[in-house]
């Protein structure tokens, strides 16, 4: 377990600034998720923590010790790569044992650690197999196992689920969450572009955009109190509805946002009225697209199957006090 501190970390590749001054405290034992759109720098930031890239300026501290100049293997980290990065010519056992062998562990010590990790991840039957004989999900577990054997202070995950199919992704997500609990809450830093993964796994989420931090907070904080238009639109699926112009004026704001699950279709009068232009039926819920006269239709969530048809005229109103108000610079206006 280790506490990480990033202090005004910057990274440039030649003349291109990728990380533009990131300061962040990651608590010991916390599950921190870096999330953001493509190109925001989340993977780069992870690689800076790992030591696979040089930090251009700023400091990175593990438990108060500056580690900028330390090689990755000396920082007490372990990394799970997006494409697993298993050594193709070595068995699963050798893959997991490689790091310890280099560091000079005894055969018994290595055997114990590898077998424990294999047990934890249920890959003991595969120890003598080669990676090419395993499925994607099994390979991913081996990659995690290899990281566990290192007994790291900080676990780093670089989009580990993106190469798996949807069902496997959900199952492995659960495994990773269980892993966090069973490993005495080791500090984990996890990078993903999928905000559902972020919301379900994280203790805290760090939303990045264009090399700077937009907001850091618990999933609920980001969901209920986004500190910018960007975060409001990024977190939550489907995307938050935004209205400006006369719609926002009515709430004395430059832009207002309201989530689809916070709008209801009223039998009587509502605040907005419009026509149904599209609907999506997912069985468990449905999403109704209503054109209320703004540039984009409002998406409204309904439980179960909707009764509304294309062309129906409906009245909409927000549920409770769930309208987010934003000023001209995209910052939230306090209630």
């Amino acid at each position, binding site marked *: 377990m280790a506490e990480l501190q990033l202090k005004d970390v910057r990274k440039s590749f030649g003349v291109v600034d990728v990380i533009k001054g990131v300061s962040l405290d990651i608590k010991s034992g916390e599950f921190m998720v870096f999330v953001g759109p493509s190109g925001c720098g989340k993977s780069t930031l992870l690689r800076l923590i790992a*030591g*696979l890239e*040089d*930090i*251009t*300026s700023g400091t990175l501290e593990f438990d108060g010790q*500056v580690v*900028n*100049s*330390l*090689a*990755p293997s000396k920082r007490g980290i372990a990394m799970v790569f997006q494409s697993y990065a298993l050594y193709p010519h070595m068995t699963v056992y050798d893959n997991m044992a490689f790091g310890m062998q280099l560091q000079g562990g005894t055969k018994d010590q290595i055997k114990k650690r590898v077998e424990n990790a294999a047990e934890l991840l249920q890959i003991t039957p595969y120890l003598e197999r080669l990676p090419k004989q395993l499925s994607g999900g099994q390979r991913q577990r081996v990659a995690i196992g290899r990281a566990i054997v290192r007994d790291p202070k900080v676990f780093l995950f670089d989009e580990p689920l993106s190469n798996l199919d949807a069902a496997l992704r959900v199952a492995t997500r659960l495994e990773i969450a269980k892993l966090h609990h069973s490993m005495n809450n080791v500090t984990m830093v996890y990078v993903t572009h999928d905000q559902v993964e972020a919301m379900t796994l994280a203790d805290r989420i760090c939303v990045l955009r264009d090399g700077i931090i937009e907001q850091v907070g618990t999933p609920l904080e980001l969901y209920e109190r986004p500190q910018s238009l960007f975060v409001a639109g990024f977190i939550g699926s489907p995307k938050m509805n935004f209205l400006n112009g006369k719609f926002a004026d009515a709430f004395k704001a430059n832009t207002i946002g309201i989530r689809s699950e916070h709008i209801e279709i009223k039998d009587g009068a509502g605040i907005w009225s419009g026509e149904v232009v599209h609907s999506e039926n997912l069985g468990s819920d449905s999403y109704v697209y209503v054109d209320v006269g703004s540039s984009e239709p409002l998406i409204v969530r309904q439980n179960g199957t909707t009764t509304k048809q294309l062309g129906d005229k409906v009245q909409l109103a927000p549920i409770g006090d769930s309208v987010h108000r934003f000023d001209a610079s995209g910052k939230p206006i306090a209630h």
Partner: protein
Amino acid sequence: MTTEDTVIGALAVRPPKAMRSELFVSRTRAAMWFLLPMIVALAVVAGWPLLRTIYFSFTDASLSNIAAAKYVGFYNYLNWTTLKSGRTLWGGVLADPAWWNAVWNTVRFAAISVVLETIIGMVVALVLNADFKGRGIVRAAILVPWAIPTIVSAKMWGWMLNDQFGIINDIFLKLHLIDHKIAWTATGDTAMTAVLVVDIWKTTPFMALLILAGLQMIPKDIYEATEIDGIHPIKTFFRVTLPLVRPALMVAVIFRLLDAMRIFDLIYVLTPNSAQTKTMSVISRENLIDFDKFAYGSAESTLLFLLIAVMTILYIWLGRVNLDGGDR
């Protein structure tokens, strides 16, 4: 604030140099050690001898007594003496008609062979790119000329082109293409043709394979799209295939061209002592070793080297070839 204060202030406020991770320092250091053996080897085996050859060209060195070489400036390249009668006698490589004949032979050979090898290589590559039964056999077959050592091909073809007992004369006579046996490798006019035939036979597979690699990088769906659009195959070739294979083609052509300019083995063995085929390499060696005009031969070698160097630089500059080792 005075100017000095501003400067001092600016310097003081400058952020400290980034702390380089020991990972990168150790990797770069390892890289230097890894490269050292190779660099030293190349310097000793290639760099130094090249410099010596250039040096010799500026001296009067001779094979039997290299150590006693004395500096003579550009004498070997160009010199002149004015006779009492007022006539100027020119000497040196640049005034030597044999040298210019060799240059002409080399250029002629290189141009014709590369053009023909490219065209025929393209045809063979197109054939190999198509899907048909027996493709493996064809691919294996064309590797045969490439695998045979040059000297052996020279002898094999020398035998086939033999004026008395050669099979080529036999076939041509039977097909009424000629009316008497031709001494292909001995007659001035036909010697270059003989050399070209053998070289094209031997090198076309190499060109074909390089072009084939380029062809195989073109996605198949482009051809499917042209089929749906109903474009004639010839038009498809010139408007679609050729532009897409151009990068690979250019690389293959330049490699071959530079290679062709340096040719020695084939000519030495197939058509020795033939003035119509003597190339720059051949005449250089002749002077260097056979005639013991060591310094003179060195000058010729240097000129050939310069020519190739200029061609290479031109190609890289014009093609702006990206030879970086990648972004790792």
